C-alpha cells in the first residue's frame, strides 16, 4: 500500500474581484490629435467621474456567467458573436483550468465581454476612460510624463505571454486603487473601433485616404509614447468577434444618477 500525498494549490484570489474603484474625472490628452483644427493648442477631453473594476474579469467569474447564459457557451455561441478561438483555453469549454480560475479571462470577443458587463449592470469602459485610469502609477494619478513609468510599461509589453496567466491583482495597484492596468492582459474597450489607422501592407500609399474618411491630418500627442502606439495599434487590429489569448476586459459603470452614456 503506497500512500499518495497530493498537494492541491487552491486558487485563492489576491484581491476582491468585482469590486470597483470610483475614478474622479479630469482632463485627458488623447493620444490621437486632429492637426487640422484652427487652434494650435493640444486637444484635451474631459473624462467624467466613473467606476472601474479594480481588476480584469476573472476566468471564474466569466465561467459563472457562461453557466447561467447558454448562448454565450462555447459550442452554442453564434459565429457572428465570436470566432473559433472563443474560450479555447478551457479544456471542456465550460470550466477554466484550476490554476487559472483567478487569472483574467481571455479568448473572449467584444460581444461576449459586453454581454458580461451588461449582465452585471455595468458596461465596458470607453478608450478615454481606460486611458485616463491607466496613466496612473502607484503614487501619481497622472504618470504619463514619467519616463520610468513609460519604461516599465514597455518592459511589460516586451515580455511574452506566460503559459499560465498570473492571477488578477498580481501586478501593481495604481493611485486610483486599480490593479493590472499594464502588465497582465490587453483589455477590450467599448469603442475600440473608433481607432482608425492606415493599412499595414507595403503597397499602401501613405494615409490610404480612400479607406477612411478622416480629418485629413491626424497626429499624436507624444511621439515618444511608444507604449500608447502599441495599444492603439492593437485596438486598430481588432475585429469585434476576435478571441485573443492575451486580450481580456474589465467593466465600468456610470456615476449613480448619470444618464446612459454612449
Amino acid at each position, binding site marked *: 500500500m503506497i500512500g499518495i500525498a497530493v498537494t492541491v494549490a487552491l486558487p485563492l484570489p489576491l484581491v476582491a474581484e468585482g469590486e470597483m474603484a470610483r475614478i474622479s474625472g479630469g482632463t485627458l490628452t488623447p493620444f490621437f490629435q486632429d492637426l487640422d483644427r484652427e487652434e494650435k493648442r493640444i486637444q484635451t477631453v474631459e473624462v467624467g467621474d466613473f467606476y472601474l473594476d479594480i481588476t480584469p474579469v476573472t476566468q471564474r467569474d466569466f465561467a459563472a456567467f457562461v453557466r447561467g447564459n447558454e448562448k454565450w457557451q462555447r459550442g452554442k455561441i453564434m*459565429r457572428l458573436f465570436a470566432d473559433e478561438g472563443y474560450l479555447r483555453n478551457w479544456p471542456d469549454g465550460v470550466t477554466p483550468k484550476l490554476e487559472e480560475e483567478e487569472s483574467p479571462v481571455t479568448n473572449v470577443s467584444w460581444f461576449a465581454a459586453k454581454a458580461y458587463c451588461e449582465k452585471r449592470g455595468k458596461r465596458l469602459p470607453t478608450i478615454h476612460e481606460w486611458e485616463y485610469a491607466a496613466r496612473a502609477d502607484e503614487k501619481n494619478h497622472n504618470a504619463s510624463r514619467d519616463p520610468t513609468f513609460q519604461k516599465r510599461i514597455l518592459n511589460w509589453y516586451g515580455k511574452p505571454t506566460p503559459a499560465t496567466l498570473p492571477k488578477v491583482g498580481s501586478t501593481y495597484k495604481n493611485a486610483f486603487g486599480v490593479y493590472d492596468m499594464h502588465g497582465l492582459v490587453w483589455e477590450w474597450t467599448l469603442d475600440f473601433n473608433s481607432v*482608425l489607422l492606415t493599412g499595414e501592407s507595403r503597397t499602401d500609399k501613405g494615409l490610404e485616404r480612400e479607406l477612411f474618411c478622416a480629418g485629413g491630418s491626424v497626429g499624436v500627442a507624444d511621439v515618444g509614447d511608444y507604449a500608447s502606439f502599441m495599444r492603439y495599434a492593437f485596438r486598430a487590429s481588432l475585429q469585434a468577434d476576435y478571441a485573443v489569448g492575451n486580450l481580456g476586459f474589465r467593466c465600468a459603470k456610470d456615476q449613480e444618477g448619470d444618464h446612459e452614456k454612449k
Partner: protein
Amino acid sequence: MKKNRIFSAGILCLAVISCHRFSCHPNEAAPPSGLSLYQMESVWRDAQNREIRFDALKGKVEVVAMVYTSCEYACPRIVGDMKRIESSLTPAQLEKTGFVLISIDPKRDIPKKLKTFSEKESLNPDRWNLLTGSESDVREMAALLGVRYKEIEEGFFSHSNLITILNRKGEILHQQKGLGTDPDESLGAISRALKD
C-alpha cells in the same frame, strides 16, 4: 428546438397575413443562421419616423453602408457608389435588393434630417432605408460590419469607407472597400445571392 418551430410557425402566419415590402417570403421564417446580422433585435427609426426592427430587412439582399448626412467628402461618394450598384442591377434583381444607410451621427441625424437627405439624393424610398438608432446600437452595428468611426469634433466624423452586401439571410457576403471602387465584385455577389 421545438419552441423555435412553434415560434417560426407563428411568424409564418404573420408573414402571410401582413406581407409588407420588407419581407414577403414565407420561407424566410426559419431562425437566423449563426452568421446572420438579423440576430440583432435592435430597433431603429427610418426617414419616415417609423420604428423598424433591423431583422425586418430579411428576405432581400441588402447593400449597407454607415454614413452621416452632414458628411461632405466621402459619404456622398459612398452613396454614389451604391447608386452605381443600383443602376447596374436588372429590374428582376432590383425587386429583391434593398439599400440601407445607417447614420453614425444619430444625435443629429433625426428622421427628418434623413428624409431631407433622401430627397436631396433622390433615393427611391421603396428601395432605400435610412436608419437612425441609439448610440450603443450604432456602435454595435459598426462592430458587426467591421466599420470603424470616431467623432473628431462636434458633428464631424472620421469613418471607414465600406459597402457591405448582405445575403437574404443577413449574412455578410461581400464588402466593397474604398471610394469609387469598381462594383463588379459586389454585383457578382448580389447575383449569386439572388440565385439561392
